[in-house]
């Protein structure tokens, strides 16, 4: 908890911490989307024919689809032909073999972001697959992971080195025609992360990817695929920051998780993309499809997310509980301030017997922001003894913001037990008074109360992330009260 008292006025004016821009010659394709552009991306990445076909099929599906409008968010129409669908740092061709080969400018950027790669290798014990503008440029801890048999690499590398795995699992959790943004991603994705944990293996370290959007006017379309074989375990961390800019940027990622028998995947996200300025100008559009498939018996997928950034968030990390006794979890903190809009939640689809799911969602809305929880719990007719517990709480700060809850519950099995609870309130005057009375500044008191409100979710995060998340929360809500 920050202890020094700060000038609220200064905080309100405070600019986005990570707002800087690294100038690297990008190998950018002209804006627009067509079969040719997709062929260009595919060729540029030296992809096999089946993948190009898959992309084109997705693109043709996408052309027939229309943008979803059901979410509780508002934004000007996006011109998909005005976006450039490929950009890669120039030095890519040679492929840096070690950190020394990496563009020093890139390294400088990472320093500013607080992820010094060379130090992290020793200190943090975290493997970082740093994605800079759609193409991975440096990967660490490869050897150590290779010893355990874990494959952790960029998506493009996986396509080259492990095509059979990619072909087997790509699009099996999120089909290419799943929704508008997933179809778009399937057509034009440039890179992302690939992770494969072999049978009965516990991944020796937390895997982490820092995504970063850089070149101006470029949409970012990552694709992540994680496969946990029988009896394996992996904890995957994803964290994001983005530089400041004026035009809105589109981000439509797809994440697919596959957990086979007795496997467990823990996927944690801290999302801190540029949310736009205090007048709602700029900011990232974050339209993400994340889905985990508990394919095997007694498998487990756990999503934890801290969403503080982006102008618009449209994101529903979901679990398909197909295997008997499988478990799905969703822990979320979504914070919106100024003119941010978030429509986020989860889907728990119970298909197997004795499947269980837990949903804990905390929404905090301040300024002129809109924050919605949208969730679906479906108990299918064959899912005997399925169990769900859902709790979504909203905290409102200020009288211009909105907080909404849209939970869908569909139960078709007589042994289903589903509970849903939701509350909406503001920060208690009594709580605030109690803190103020003990000499704690209002800003700190609010911080403390909000952190307490989110505690249930933070405790699910890996240690380093939990600390970062708490700080982020403070930064996001600066100036919201006082």
């Amino acid at each position, binding site marked *: 908890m920050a202890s020094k008292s700060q000038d609220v006025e200064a905080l309100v004016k405070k600019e986005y911490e990570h707002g800087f821009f690294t100038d690297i010659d990008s190998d950018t394709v002209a804006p627009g989307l067509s079969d040719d552009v997709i062929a260009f991306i595919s060729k540029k990445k030296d992809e096999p024919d089946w993948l190009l076909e898959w992309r084109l099929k997705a693109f043709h599906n996408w052309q027939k689809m229309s943008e979803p409008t*059901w979410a509780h968010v508002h934004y000007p129409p996006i011109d998909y032909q005005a976006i450039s669908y490929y950009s890669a740092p120039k030095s890519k061709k040679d492929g840096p073999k070690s950190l020394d080969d990496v563009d020093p400018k890139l390294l400088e950027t990472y320093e500013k972001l607080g992820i010094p790669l060379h130090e992290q290798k020793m200190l943090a014990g975290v493997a970082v697959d740093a994605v800079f503008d759609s193409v991975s440029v440096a990967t660490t801890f490869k050897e150590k992971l290779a010893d355990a048999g874990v494959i952790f690499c960029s998506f493009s590398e996986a396509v080259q080195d492990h095509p059979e795995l990619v072909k087997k699992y790509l699009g099996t959790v999120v089909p290419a025609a799943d929704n508008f943004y997933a179809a778009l991603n399937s057509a034009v994705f440039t890179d992302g992360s690939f992770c494969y944990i072999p049978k009965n293996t516990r991944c020796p370290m937390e895997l982490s990817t820092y995504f970063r959007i850089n070149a101006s006017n470029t949409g970012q379309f990552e694709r992540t695929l994680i496969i946990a074989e029988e009896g394996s375990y992996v904890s995957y961390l994803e964290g994001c920051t983005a530089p400041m800019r004026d035009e809105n940027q589109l981000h439509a990622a797809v994440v697919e998780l596959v957990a086979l028998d007795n496997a467990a995947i823990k996927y944690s996200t801290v999302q801190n993309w540029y949310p736009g300025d205090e007048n709602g100008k700029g900011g990232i559009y974050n339209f993400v499809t994340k889905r985990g498939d508990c394919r095997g018996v007694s498998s487990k997928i756990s999503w934890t997310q801290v969403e503080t950034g982006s102008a618009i968030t449209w994101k529903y990390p979901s679990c398909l509980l197909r295997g008997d006794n499988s478990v799905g979890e969703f822990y979320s903190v979504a914070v919106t301030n100024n003119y941010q809009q978030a429509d986020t939640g989860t889907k728990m689809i119970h298909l197997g017997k004795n499947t269980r799911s837990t949903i804990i969602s905390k929404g905090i809305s301040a300024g002129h922001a809109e924050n919605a929880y949208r969730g679906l719990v479906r*108990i299918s*007719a064959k899912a005997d003894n399925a169990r769900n517990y859902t709790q979504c709480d*909203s905290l*409102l*700060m*200020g*009288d211009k*913001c*909105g*907080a*909404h*809850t*849209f*939970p*869908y*519950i*569909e*139960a*078709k*099995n*007589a*042994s*289903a*037990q*589903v*509970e*849903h*609870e*939701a*509350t*909406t*309130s*503001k920060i208690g005057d009594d709580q605030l008074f109690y803190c103020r009375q003990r000499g704690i500044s209002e800003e700190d008191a609010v911080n403390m109360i909000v952190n307490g409100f989110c505690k249930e979710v933070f405790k699910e995060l890996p240690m380093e992330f939990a600390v970062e998340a708490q700080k982020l929360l403070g930064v996001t809500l600066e100036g919201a009260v006082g």
Partner: protein
Amino acid sequence: MSDTAVKHYIEELHRLQESLPGDKLSLIREAAMGQFQARGFPTTRQENWKYTDVKPIARSAFGIAEAKPATGYEKQLEHARLSGLDSHELVFINGRFSVEHSRSQDLPQGVVLEDMSSAVNNHSMLVDSVMSNTTLNDQSNPFNILNTAFIHDGVLIHVPDDCSIDKPINLIYLSGYSDNEFSAHPRNLIFLGSGARLTVIENYVGAKDRQYFINTVTDAVLSSNAALTHYKLQQESVESYHIGNLNIYQDRDSQVNSHSISLGGALVRNDIKVQLDAEGAGVLLNGLYMANGKQHIDNHTLINHLQQHTTSEEHYRGVLNDRGRGVFNGKVVVHKDAQKTDAAQSNANLLLSDQAEIDTKPELEIYADDVKCSHGSTVGQLDKDMMFYLRSRAIDEATAKSILTYAFAEEVIKRIEIEQIRHYLEYQVIGRLPDAELIKEFTHE
């Protein structure tokens, strides 16, 4: 398919209009039909109708019911009456008002209780005020519009300032006893002056296994300090279609208690829309739905907190058995100026069969910060410990189940203030459970 159904209703309207030359409402009907034509029947692609498919209604295209002869129906009427309850009684046969069966005496001075066809001539101002009120009249609901297109039967109730009607007004709708395959669109308008008090019962009773379509709308406008208690007891034939809209507008410090009990009907949809438009306005929505066989019962409620210091409380419970399907959608919207809103909502469901289904969606939309809002929704089964307790006392399984199911439903019934209605419902609810006679022993007060 929907187009032919719409065409059918346009023809039916022409038929009705010709039979009522020079009727004051003909323009309103035409306008509404124009709107309905533009909109058509709702489809499951519309969010509000996601879980309820009204194709069977569109497909059936029943003709408008004929007015019925005056005699008969005494036995059915006796059956539908709430025994021991003294009330002003208005009777509708197949949705058409029957003056011969109705009786209302000793109404306080100034109270208007008239059937719509005469109210149009005697109180056209009141009728117009509702028809032109777009916030009250739900323009987004196609069935509400369709009802307006056929507005003819129903009652107008006006209670003047500071007047209280002690005896409830009991509207009895007998359907299907003499006729099959008809549609009816009864419309009720209720006005309460400042400080007025009223209890209205809408009791829908249908002949066994008859097929028909009832599309009813009740609009209620409450002035300051007025109080309305509204009961809707729906026991239509299990082959029938029933669509009901209740639109409520509330002024300062007014209170509405609504009790909605849905037991009958093959395809049922109830919509309740409440506008809390002044400080101190409060509403209680209390509801029970029980679906057996292949029944489909959908309850949609919308509460708009438009001003500060308004309160709402909602309790809906469902019992789904056999292949029955329940749908619940409770939406609470707290608008920008509605600070100090207190809104609580709960929906509990009992799933008793693997073929039964419940789709529930409690929604909160909040644009003010100093509010207290909560909702809860559950789907579950009978408590194992409770079952064990009863079984260990030598009560057989079927009876134990029935007792616990009844206890679950009773949470809603016990909120009903009128004793006779409570008893009547206890009787009706228990009657739908296995081992009815045995349970009655346990539940006798």
